[in-house]
């Protein structure tokens, strides 16, 4: 029934050419894999930029070994990077990691591949829109990267691009253009995800039977849909300020480097911050919700029991989604906005921590009574809980107005949000890769390499980010090209060396993963359709799923996590198996 109502390109099973199969594909699975590979490459690029910056932070003023001699003398004379280049690396690191790495990985890759399978759909609702979404993302990302080659280099005003700095700095125009393209891509995706998730569910799959991962994707799609348009508009206004002589964000009487700025004035730099954070705070949850969904799936499967508090989990995700729209100005306590407003955002920020605590509580309680299998995906999912917990807890002194006065814009902030998005989101996304890899390729990733990758990665990530809390306590400001220029940074300078060494080690520990991924694709151990003995619908179709996914549209009889039911010969009962299989 579902299939007939959609005369998508997938109903034809004619053999496809290389181009329509691998490149301009409308199949959600191929698009998901395109997103997966592309976003992993962007993550690696963003990480590489950071590895360069880590040299400058650990050994300021020393020539970068090996790579320094390859860089042009404009950005690194004699191999020593300039302040401009450092700022370019910083701005691009943030932009690439957030907009080109984690969001496309969590939504474009995992959402695209897994969500239609989890709801028993033959494809996304709008396959061509889906293809267009990828084919806007990739050029947008390439444009962003290519801006390094332009005269003046890439954007260098931070990923936050605060006006007026962003308006007078070089590189920003291309950043804004690329952002407009990337945002458009995300919006197309969001519309598609919402339509698919709500309208194309298999018969019997009511909302209260949806897997948590699909719920997370739906909430994420709403956030993207509502939060991105204001930023897109804001970016176009900033673009106008740069190229068309408007002054939306420029007040009158600016004097830059001794020259009066030729702008009519009347604009307000705070306006940019409000518009930016109105997107960028929900964006934090866009980075975090899909990984939370992944962790929930893996934990239910690895403990062999239903998740504790399914309804609490879903309700918490929805309330996070709603609340995330009224906490944005906690990034702006010290921006010069009225301190009265600070009190309002203080209260909403404390409120949004409640559902976040509830989610972690449910995940921990889910372990109780389980029969925990320490598989590779499960290791990542388990590591998510305490490490994301550190990220959440350290948000507390930043969300409180008074303590934020001291900690705002210090390394403490960097430590906090990297614990959230790196040891939180990225760890969960890596776990998800190991978990769903058998579905993508019909083969399993190597277990031993997976364990090496896991332990190395977790130790290194903590080694990078934990010292930042200490540096932040000592008052070290973020975005410093040369921390040693300030006396109060000197005692904690050795910690920069520690962070940097762990960052480079972290890179080495990704090599087994890269090797494992590609070699398992061709040579991994063959597994059947449901190697993890899981209950949700994506395991009901062949691995890899054929065109149209399901041979026959599945019918759903029960909730998503029916593990260890009594009177069963097996300890899992898939959603699509008929009830008479009981007994």
């Amino acid at each position, binding site marked *: 029934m579902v299939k007939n109502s959609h005369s998508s390109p997938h109903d034809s099973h004619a053999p496809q050419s290389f181009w329509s199969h691998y490149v301009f594909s409308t199949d959600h699975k191929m698009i998901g894999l395109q997103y997966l590979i592309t976003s992993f490459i962007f993550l690696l690029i963003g990480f590489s930029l950071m590895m360069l910056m880590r040299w400058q932070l650990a050994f300021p003023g020393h020539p970068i070994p090996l790579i320094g001699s390859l860089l042009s003398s404009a950005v690194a004379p004699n191999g020593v990077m300039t*302040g*401009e280049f450092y*700022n370019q690396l910083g701005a691009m690191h943030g932009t690439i990691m957030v907009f080109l790495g984690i969001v496309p990985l969590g939504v474009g890759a995992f959402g695209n591949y897994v969500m239609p399978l989890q709801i028993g759909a033959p494809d996304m609702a709008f396959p061509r829109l889906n293809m267009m979404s990828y084919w806007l993302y990739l050029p947008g990302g390439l444009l962003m990267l290519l801006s390094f080659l332009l005269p003046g280099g890439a954007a260098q*005003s931070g990923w936050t691009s605060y006006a*007026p*700095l962003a308006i*007078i*700095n070089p590189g920003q125009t291309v950043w804004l253009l690329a952002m407009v393209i990337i945002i458009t891509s995300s919006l197309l995706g969001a519309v598609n995800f919402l339509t698919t998730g709500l309208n194309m569910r298999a018969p019997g799959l009511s909302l209260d039977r949806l897997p948590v991962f699909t719920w997370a994707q739906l909430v994420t799609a709403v956030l993207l849909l509502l939060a991105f348009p204001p930023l897109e508009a804001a970016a176009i206004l900033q673009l106008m300020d740069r190229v068309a002589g408007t002054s939306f964000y420029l*007040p009158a009487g*600016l004097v830059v*480097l*001794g020259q*009066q*700025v030729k702008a009519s*004035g009347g604009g*307000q*730099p705070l306006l940019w911050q409000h518009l930016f954070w109105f997107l960028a705070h929900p964006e934090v949850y866009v980075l975090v919700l899909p990984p939370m969904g992944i962790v929930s799936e893996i934990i239910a499967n690895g403990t062999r*029991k239903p998740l504790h508090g399914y309804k609490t989990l879903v309700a918490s995700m929805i309330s996070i989604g709603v609340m995330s729209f009224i906490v944005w100005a906690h990034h702006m306590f010290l921006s*010069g906005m009225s*301190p009265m407003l600070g009190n309002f955002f*203080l209260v909403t920020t404390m409120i949004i*921590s409640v559902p976040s605590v*509830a989610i972690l509580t*449910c995940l921990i*309680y889910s*372990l*109780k*009574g*389980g*029969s*925990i299998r*320490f598989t590779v995906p499960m290791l990542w999912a*388990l590591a998510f*809980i*305490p490490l994301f*917990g550190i990220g959440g*807890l350290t948000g507390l002194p930043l969300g*409180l*107005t*008074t*303590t934020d*006065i*001291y900690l*705002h*814009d*210090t390394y403490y902030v960097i430590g906090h949000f990297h614990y959230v998005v790196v040891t939180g989101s990225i760890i969960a996304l890596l776990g998800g890769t190991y978990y769903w890899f058998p579905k993508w390729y019909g083969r399993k990733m190597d277990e031993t390499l997976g364990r090496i990758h896991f332990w190395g990665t977790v130790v290194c990530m903590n080694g990078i980010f934990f010292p930042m809390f200490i540096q932040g*306590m*000592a*008052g070290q*400001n973020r*975005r*410093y*090209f040369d*921390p040693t*220029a*300030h006396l109060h940074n*000197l005692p*904690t300078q050795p910690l920069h060396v520690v962070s940097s060494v762990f960052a480079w080690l972290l890179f080495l520990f990704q090599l087994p993963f890269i090797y494992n991924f590609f070699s398992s694709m061709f040579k991994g151990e063959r597994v059947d359709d449901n190697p993890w003995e899981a209950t949700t619908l994506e395991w009901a179709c062949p691995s890899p799923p054929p065109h149209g996914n399901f041979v026959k549209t599945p019918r759903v009889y029960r909730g998503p996590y029916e593990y*260890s*039911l009594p009177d069963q010969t097996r300890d899992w009962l898939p959603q699509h198996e008929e009830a008479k299989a009981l007994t």
Partner: protein
Amino acid sequence: MNGYYGWGLPVAASTYAHDIDFGIIMIHVAMFVIFILWGIFFTYLLIRYRRREGVPAERERDHGALKSLLPDIIVMIFEIGLIVFYAIPSWSRIKMNFPDPSQSNQVDVIAEQFAWNVHYPGADGKFGPREPRLVHFSNPIGLDRDKPAAQDDIVFANEIHMPVGKPTLIKLSSKDVIHSFFVPEFRIKQDAMPGMVIPVWVTPTQTGTFEISCAQLCGFAHSFMRGEVVVQTQEDFDAWLKSRAPAKQEAPAKASESW
């Protein structure tokens, strides 16, 4: 090194520094306790419920709601306490209540790439007007020297002097981009926003030389935007102020008056 800095919080040198430190330390103790308790419980669960042959998982009966809300309720009570008894009162003390200007050492700080310009009103206690069109390398803040209020004004860069034990009221502004005025020892931070004048106050509690650093990305030399706060006794401060006062200018043949 002067012993102010280390691996923890720097020396606390203002009246409200202890308020902020109290919050930071209390929250970190709470965070530590929460993390350790959860960590012990988490580790226990992992060991107790690891997979063992012949021991199936136990399905819990659905009594989840209250149990999973309990940690939430505790956290919520703690947070409400923090808001009501700590954050809102201390925030309004620091950011919303300002000392009486006539009883304070008044100074305007005008940030630019990449320096802190400091403007004292001089003996008359009145700030001369500043005009963007007058900005010149010899007059970085565009002070209109022709105006009477500006005659005795003192202007220099990257050094703010303050008397100990008396409030200093700073009016913070910026000529070009956003900067952020941060003195770790005072625990004070405030963005300097172009187009706005934002008041900041501090009462130093000990003499010494402290560091001003810019906490908001302001361009390629952001990390070199550094200044010093010199906290002196009232006598030393008065003497310093007198020594920096502009020399009485000879009246230049009435020229400026007739303009």
